[in-house]
Structure formats: structure tokens, C-alpha cells
């Protein structure tokens, strides 16, 4: 019998611990499928963040390094400078990358570090139970913006892809979403391109993935996908922000 669908080799057999309806599982799978297709598992070192995916070193079967909160791009810089011929990626959430780790991601990008960042944006701190993130939308109710995010109190949601796209060292930046089959396919293409950019030594690449957090948004998985489409994608338009015409 022909096998038509199986777990990618770049994932271990360890079951994910993520909440029902959380899209981290899909994104992990996409990264793993890309690693398989490019046949780079043995040459890849991933960097785990702090947040819901702190232990994804248990899920990816390539070598993995767990980093302090926000510091993954600095850790990845050290790894890549020591292993220039290997593939180094970071997997970070929006609390990790867009708040505490802002300096590290901006400077890794502007130095043009030849690393790939998978930036999962779900507009909230998941692991610490639903606090406001820099990416939380105006009006969004969180445990630390209980009456909704207000610009005069909390400032505005940060658009990371647009910001990093202004830096010369960043060569490929795309924002994707995993809310539908169509978008999941697009997301995988973007992730693959980001890794190819690194393999060709072109510079820094990042894919921002709009993601859901049904638990902390307080919605069903299906409703979360609607909310992502109707609200997040409005504020965070999908598309290529850097390297539109880049051929890899």
C-alpha cells in the first residue's frame, strides 16, 4: 500500500502539548516538511524561544538550542558564526520577539545574519495566560488590558514585518497566515523560500505567521480562525514585505 501522508522526518514522535485549535502544530509541521524537502535536517540547528513553544526542541529532530526570553536571534547569531555552513533558524512568538527581544531581532536583521526566523504572531502572551502583547489589537481584551487595549494607555500594535523590511540586512520578509488550506499552502512556500534564502547565503529571512490562541482569546478554534481573518489580517496585511522579486 502506498503511503500518501505521514509525519515529516524532521519531527520526533513526541506528541505536541499545544491546546486544541492552536495553530503552532500546523506551523511546526510546515517547518518540518520544508526541512525534509530541502533535505537539511542533519545540517540544521534550531533555536527554541521562551513561550508556549519553549520545548519545541523535543519536537524537532534536528539539533536544538533553547534560548532565554527574546534572545534567540543572538543565540542563533553565535551558532551561525560558529557554524557558517549549517542552517540555523529561530522559532519565536510575539512576546518573545516583539517585546523583550526587540533589540536582538532588529540587530540580527540589520547585520544581515544568515539565519531564518519563524515569527508566530497570535497577538497575545499564551504561556503566561493571556497578557497583552505588543501585537495585541486595539480594543483586544486580555488579562492585562481587561477593558480592551487603548492607544492612550497601551500604545499601538507593532507591525514587525513592516519594521524589519526597512533594514538592508533583511532580504526576505513575508507575512502569512494559517487560517485556511489556501493560506497554509502559501505559508509553506514562504517558509521554504526563507530557508532557501539562507542556504544561498543571501542574508536575514523571516516569515511572520498569523496564528490563533483559542484558549487565551476565549473562543472556539473555528471562531478563532474567523477572528484572525476578520481582525488580525486587517491590521497585519498578508504579503511579501521584502524580497518580492527575489529568485531562489
Amino acid at each position, binding site marked *: 500500500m502506498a503511503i500518501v501522508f505521514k509525519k515529516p522526518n524532521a519531527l520526533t514522535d513526541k506528541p505536541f502539548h499545544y491546546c486544541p485549535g492552536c495553530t503552532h502544530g500546523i506551523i511546526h509541521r510546515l517547518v518540518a516538511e520544508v526541512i525534509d524537502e530541502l533535505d537539511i*535536517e542533519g545540517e540544521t540547528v534550531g533555536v527554541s524561544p521562551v513561550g508556549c513553544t519553549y520545548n519545541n526542541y523535543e519536537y524537532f529532530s534536528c539539533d536544538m*538550542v*533553547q534560548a532565554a526570553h527574546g534572545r534567540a536571534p*543572538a543565540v542563533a547569531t*553565535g*551558532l551561525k558564526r560558529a557554524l557558517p555552513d549549517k542552517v540555523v533558524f529561530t522559532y519565536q512568538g510575539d512576546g518573545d520577539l516583539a517585546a523583550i527581544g526587540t533589540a536582538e531581532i532588529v540587530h540580527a536583521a540589520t547585520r544581515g545574519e544568515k539565519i531564518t526566523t519563524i515569527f508566530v504572531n497570535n497577538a497575545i502572551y499564551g504561556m503566561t495566560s493571556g497578557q497583552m502583547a505588543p501585537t495585541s489589537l486595539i480594543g483586544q481584551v486580555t488579562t492585562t488590558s481587561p477593558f480592551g487595549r487603548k492607544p492612550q494607555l497601551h500604545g499601538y500594535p507593532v507591525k514587525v514585518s513592516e519594521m524589519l523590511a526597512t533594514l538592508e540586512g533583511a532580504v526576505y520578509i513575508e507575512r502569512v497566515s494559517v487560517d485556511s488550506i489556501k493560506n497554509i499552502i502559501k505559508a509553506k512556500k514562504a517558509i521554504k523560500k526563507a530557508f532557501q534564502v539562507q542556504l544561498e547565503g543571501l542574508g536575514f529571512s523571516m516569515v511572520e505567521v498569523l496564528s490563533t490562541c483559542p484558549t487565551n482569546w476565549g473562543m472556539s478554534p473555528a471562531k478563532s480562525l474567523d477572528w484572525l481573518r476578520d481582525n488580525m489580517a486587517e491590521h497585519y496585511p498578508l504579503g511579501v514585505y521584502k524580497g518580492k522579486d527575489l529568485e531562489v
Partner: protein
Amino acid sequence: MGKRILMKGNEVIAEAALRAGCRHFFGYPITPQTEISHYMARKMEEIGGVFLQAESEVAAINMVYGAASAGVRVMTSSSSPGISLKQEGISYSACAELPMVIVDIVRCGPGLGGILPAQCDYFQVVKGGGHGDYNLIVLAPASVQELYELTVEAFNLADRYRNPVVILGDGYLGQMMEAVEFRDEEPIEKGNKDWATTGHGGKRIHNVTTSIYIDPNVLEAHNRKLQEKYKKVKENETRAEVVNCDGADVIVVAYGTVARVVKNVIKDAEKLGIKVGLIRPITLWPFPTEVFDKYAGVPKGFLTVEMSSGQMVEDVRLALNGRNRVEFHGRMGGNVPTQKDILDIVRQMADKQ
């Protein structure tokens, strides 16, 4: 051995690291250690190594964490306020058991303090500084020659014990020029780096570098493993210089630059008929407690002298555990205890009883 040449302390640290096989350096500018970066920036480019000026000390120590994970010999250097910023990464590195060398050319604090030499980082380096139960191996050189030898040794110790090692110097040592004699060949130990995350190449299951253990029993077991390692370090690596202590009236305890001043006090005191001994800890952690057992009964007691308000003196008191009197003399703000002041205290101590 080659010929003796005149070099600045900070440059000798950098040269020693290169001789020890360090090809990766990540730093951030701060006085009074910047010559280390200048030297590294030039040399690394010449020899094809990596010099990277990070966006902050926080980033620099995390780059070191990444490079150390890849199994290469790696160093960072900074000075007191910068070391405060590195403490997060240092704690993680101690937990993840990553070999690395961290140089702290201490300046006076607290806060931004000043840029003059001090020894006020003893607590933050020797006693942890970061969170959790961990120890760093802390080496305290007292001359430019020793900066060289201990920096080379630091890389060996880091690899041997998979632990961060700190060179704790002060601004005088970093800035002074002194003769140094380099060996023709360095005693480089080749550590086993099977644990390094270099890409498994399809030849093994994946390696993981981590400092998080959510299960309490697993974390406790990891802590016990670390403590076992620290015990071994204590047994094997404790070092001190002992000068003139047999039959001494008073023993002065000092490390680094201050110990050099004390060596002159020994000569001055001799003229007055007072025998002064010196215990100079070379490893501040592990602290050379056993030397104090040997000399605990010195007739007129111990005097600890530091460029701080009294930090190492706590370890001297712990080592003696009430068996003898321990006096303290310290200067702060970038001032140095003078030969005359130390001699006056020694005289008082010798006359008192």
C-alpha cells in the same frame, strides 16, 4: 619560552585567548576593557576568526551561549555594569553547562560608578550574580604574565568542566604595561564535545542545549549533578599563592592588584621586626579554604585588604569560622589601599596583643 616583551594587560588577555585557540569573540564597548575588543577586532579579521560587536552586553553573552553550544572556544569581555547585564546569560550558560570564558575588568560602582579600578564585583561574580544555584570558576590574576597564563588555563578549565570561567581583573591590570613571556606552544586540552549542537548529520539522535527542566525531580537531579561537578572543581582546582606565612605575626589576605601592594608591605614590616604573611587566592571560586586551616592560629590575626567595602572578607571569615580575628581595610571609588595605610594597621595589630 620566547623573549620577554612589553604589553598592555588587556591586549595580553586577547592574545592569550587567541593562543588558546579561541576564534570567536562577542563583546560590547565599555571602559576599562576596550583594548581587548580592539585587539580582537584586528586579529580575528587577519586570521579568519569571528569578532562581533553586539548591540548590547545582553546580546553578546547570548551570542557566546550560541557559539559555545556549537562547541567552539569562545570569549566575551566587559566591565562591572556590563557584567550585571550579562548575568542572565551567565546563569543560563551555567545551567546548560556551556564552556566559555568571560573577562571582567572591574571598575568602581555601584551604578555607573566610575571608570577607575576596583574589586567591588566579587559578590556578583564569585557569589553568583545571576539566579539559581550555580558557581563560576573565578580566576584572579595579579600580573600581566598571570593574565596570560590564567587566560589560557581558563579555556582548559571551561572545557574540562563544561562551565563558564571568569577572569576577574581590575582596571590596573587591564591598563598596565608589563613584561610578558609567551610559551612557544600552549598546553591546550582537547575537550570532548560530543554534546555540541552542530547538526547531527544523520549520524546520531539530536543534541539539545537547554537550561529548562519543568519536572521538579529532573531539575533537582540536574542541580545535584551540577553540585557534584562543583565539588570536583573544589577538590582539583583550588589555588592560592602563600607568601611568608610560616611563623608570621599577621597574615594579610588580598587578591589581584592589592596583593602586589601587600608584597611591598611585607618588606616594610620586616624592617620593623614584624613578620607579615600573604595569602593571595588565585581562584576566588573555589575559595582556598584549606590554606586558612593551616594558618588559622597566626598569633596576631588576619587582615583582609580590598578595593571594596569588604566582600572577599566574608569568605575569609567563613574559612576561619571564628578561629581568629579578621580585620578589614578597604578603599572605594577607584582609590587603592596604600602601602603606608596597610603597614599602619599591621603595626597596630602586632602591637595590640
